[in-house]
């Protein structure tokens, strides 16, 4: 949403007549429908200049956050932007989580977009409300609005002051300004200051309500045993055995839904979780394994290597790489592989659904409330307007909770059982039935002339496109996926050829925090490090040299993007990270520094990892120095936290991230065989931020990609062992 529209009481009624009552619930945020203790109680708001701000005569200022809170601080950032321009103190406002509704604009909390896409719209929403309150006060006082000021929820004029609540009725009568004046960033009081995430106090007291925690009267808990192999089917199962477990109420078979989002399975519904799990264990399902049951990880890798040996589709070409190769003194080449990986956020998927005739209400820990509404409507065959989606706090998402499959499952079960159903995925369900980070295989080549100067860069990436996860989708990587590292290659080689190729996948592909950057960055940054050594250069200095003079890389699909790729900003974070780490200093035996930098989600991140490898091959990551440029910073507390978290996640991927297939099924199932880093493995992390321009860009994802190559390059510095296959687990470090 880039403009502010006024929604009057009268227009609610008019709109309702056209579109059903879901819109009313949307505008009013539907808080009364929440279970007790879930959110703020319903109270009539008098002044609602737009869908994000409401002020009651009781003086309560209510801000609506339309993005999900996954721990990344998105909800807090939205409220900071609104509160800044409205001129209220965050401590004084009530914050509600929006229902799914297109009137908020894009609600999908993904792609590191919350601050980037809401920087102007939410400030405008706050500023419009403030202008109207000022106008109302000026009219009451008989003074010019230009002579009034605001501060902490009051309009001020000389020694007079009126609280916003006192002006709510009059302000509601005024027109909404189209283009309210925005504050000069130099006048910001909230934006740019460290703010605590809004849910912190509830979290510390165990009061925060996640998808797993929703309660409704008459609720059943469901647990589903799904086909271990995608596209498998149920042959038979023992419903009687499941029903004989105390507190089990019902057994329901589920077929895959038409979107291909859900799998075949059998659900056990019970009055408590333990009974549902016990009943599920008693089902003794026999599966029809289906066409994918012979898939193994070894076969997948062979397929990837076979495809990678063939020419791919050219995604970008400059000069003539083949001619450069023919003329070269030598061609330096390496291949990189990364397996499937899964999210393993702490809260597995969970959704509660209640179906009443042709209406459905869901409470979901989701990143994508509007998509959830659409899929639920389609699965139940009811109008979109009859689906209400409440968004709970999300206990980690990392892209997994963009997919609405679990809401569809919950809704189908609620309809079939006739009772509200809370569907809970177990950890094993999450790891074995996920939407995985794609497996990838990459070939990189550099041509080097007789003067030991690199003359050409070749990169072929092979992975299943995310479209594979959808029935209408295809296997070739999309151009969007290729911009995640491949086509955004920033180095000034005279000859460049970038190619891609797709491959079918036997498991579903999803978005995982920074997506294709998670395999492109390790390959590109690893290969740059290798190439530096090949031509006898310092890796950091070589990167800076190949980056060359600052230039703008134009996105041909979006040439007028407000977020141009400025390689000078990449250089700046690179230089800062190197400076922070004391790059070039002499390191003890078996200890080394590794440099990496990467542009993603329009932000620039660079890191230096300091690692040692002992004589047994045991890796210790001592320190990671992080430099990040995401433009103007809304919440420095959250930016630092996101960099710490991204290093932890990148380190987990580098050390352990591997999903293996055997007989078409995922082998791993829990944190014993899909480990993630623990506190004792955490390095010291220093974060410094550069505000490289005046347009904010992504922060949730850009820290993940450079972590992995910074660590593997440091392992090379410490040991001389080059890591081209991730994860490290299972490899003896030299």
């Amino acid at each position, binding site marked *: 949403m880039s403009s502010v529209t006024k929604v009057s009481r009268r227009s609610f009624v008019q709109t309702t007549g056209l579109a059903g009552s879901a819109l009313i619930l949307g505008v009013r945020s539907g808080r009364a429908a929440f279970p007790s203790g879930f959110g703020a109680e319903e109270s009539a708001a008098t002044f609602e200049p737009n869908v994000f701000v409401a002020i009651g005569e009781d003086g309560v200022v209510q801000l609506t956050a339309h993005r999900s809170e996954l721990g990344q601080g998105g909800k807090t950032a939205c409220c900071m932007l609104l509160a800044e321009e409205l001129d209220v103190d965050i401590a004084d406002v009530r914050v509600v989580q929006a229902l799914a509704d297109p009137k908020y604009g894009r609600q999908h909390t993904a792609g590191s977009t919350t601050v980037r896409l809401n920087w102007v719209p939410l400030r405008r929403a706050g500023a419009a409300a403030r202008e109207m309150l000022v106008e109302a006060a000026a009219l009451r006082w008989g003074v010019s609005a230009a002579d009034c000021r605001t501060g902490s929820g009051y309009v001020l004029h000389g020694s007079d002051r009126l609280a916003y609540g006192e002006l709510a009725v009059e302000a509601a009568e005024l027109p909404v300004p189209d283009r309210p004046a925005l504050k000069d960033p130099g006048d910001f009081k909230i934006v740019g200051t460290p703010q605590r995430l809004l849910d912190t106090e509830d*979290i510390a007291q*165990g009061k925060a309500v996640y998808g797993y925690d929703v309660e409704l009267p008459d609720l059943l808990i469901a647990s589903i045993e799904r086909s271990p192999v995608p596209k498998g089917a149920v042959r038979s199962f023992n419903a009687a055995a499941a029903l004989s477990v105390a507190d089990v109420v019902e057994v329901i078979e589920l077929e895959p839904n038409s979107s291909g989002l859900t799998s075949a399975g059998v659900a056990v519904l019970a009055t408590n979780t333990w009974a549902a799990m016990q009943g599920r264990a008693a089902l003794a399902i026999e599966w029809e394994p289906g066409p994918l049951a012979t898939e193994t990880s070894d076969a997948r890798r062979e397929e990837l290597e076979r495809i990678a040996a063939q020419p791919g589709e050219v995604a970008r070409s400059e000069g003539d790489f083949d001619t450069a190769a023919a003329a070269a003194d030598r061609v330096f080449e390496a291949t990189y592989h990364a397996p499937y990986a899964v999210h393993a956020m702490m*809260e597995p998927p969970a959704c509660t659904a209640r179906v009443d005739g042709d209406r459905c209400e869901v409470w979901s820990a989701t990143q994508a409330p509007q998509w959830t509404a659409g899929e639920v409507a389609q699965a139940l065959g009811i109008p979109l307007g009859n689906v209400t989606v409440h968004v709970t706090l999300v206990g980690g998402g990392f892209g997994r909770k963009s997919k609405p499959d679990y809401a569809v499952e919950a809704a189908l079960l609620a309809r079939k059982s006739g009772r509200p159903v809370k569907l809970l995925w177990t950890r094993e369900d999450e790891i074995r039935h996920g939407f995985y980070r794609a497996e990838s295989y990459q070939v990189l080549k550099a041509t080097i002339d007789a003067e030991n100067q690199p003359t050409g860069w070749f990169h072929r990436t092979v992975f299943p496109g995310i479209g594979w996860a959808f029935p209408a989708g295809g296997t070739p990587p999309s151009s969007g996926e290729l911009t995640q590292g491949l086509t955004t290659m920033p180095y000034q080689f005279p000859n460049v050829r970038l190619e891609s190729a797709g491959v079918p996948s036997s498991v579903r592909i999803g978005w995982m925090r920074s997506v294709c950057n998670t395999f492109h960055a390790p390959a590109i940054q690893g290969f740059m490090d290798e190439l530096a050594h090949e031509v006898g250069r310092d890796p950091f200095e070589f990167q800076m040299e190949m980056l060359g003079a600052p230039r703008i890389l134009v996105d041909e699909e979006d040439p007028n993007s407000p977020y141009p790729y400025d390689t000078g900003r990449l250089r700046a974070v690179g230089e800062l990270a190197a400076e922070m780490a004391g790059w070039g200093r002499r390191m003890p035996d078996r200890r080394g520094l590794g440099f990496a930098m990467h542009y993603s989600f329009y932000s620039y991140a660079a890191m230096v990892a300091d690692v040692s490898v002992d004589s047994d091959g045991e890796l210790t990551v001592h320190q990671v120095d992080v430099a990040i440029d995401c433009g103007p910073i809304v919440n420095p507390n959250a930016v630092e936290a996101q960099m710490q978290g991204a290093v*932890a996640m990148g380190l987990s991927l580098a050390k352990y991230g591997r999903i293996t297939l055997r007989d078409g099924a995922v082998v791993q199932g829990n944190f014993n065989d899909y480990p993630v880093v623990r506190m*004792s493995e955490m390095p010291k992390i220093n974060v410094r931020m550069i505000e490289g321009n005046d347009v904010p860009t992504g922060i949730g994802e850009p820290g993940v990609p450079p972590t992995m190559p910074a660590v593997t390059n440091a392992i090379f510095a410490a040991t001389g062992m080059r890591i081209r296959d991730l994860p490290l687990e299972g490899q003896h470090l030299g």
Partner: protein
Amino acid sequence: MLTLLVNGERRTVDADPAMPLLWVLRDLLHLKGTKYACGAGLCGSCTVHVDGEPVRSCITTVESVAGRAVTTIEGLADGERLHPVQKAWIEENTAQCGYCHPGQIMSAVALLARTPKPTDEEIDAAMSGNICRCGTYLRIREAIHAASGSDGGGS
């Protein structure tokens, strides 16, 4: 019927004796602060105290804690007065998604009861059974140090 002492209150539940304490707390007693994340004692999200000792409630049968004192995250505060570890957690902006943090806090409280002034190494050793996928470990360590500087830590 089994009788439990939960957060100082006597509670009677009609549960399968083999039901993990986690589900008794969450589904039968409606104490949702204790979290499920692995169901196998691998991640610590479900940590509660039994007679002051941290246990993984997801692999502890309700039968085994009958008659013993169970403390959950909901029972840490003294009325309105938060436990020093909870205060430190808030002060240090520790949580991101926060899902694992009730378990983290329960482990931290148990650590400080044993070791009022832990070193980084002692914190790491005591806390490495608790996974945080958001990667808040450094702030957890800071919060524990901050809490150890207060009068508290004992549960």
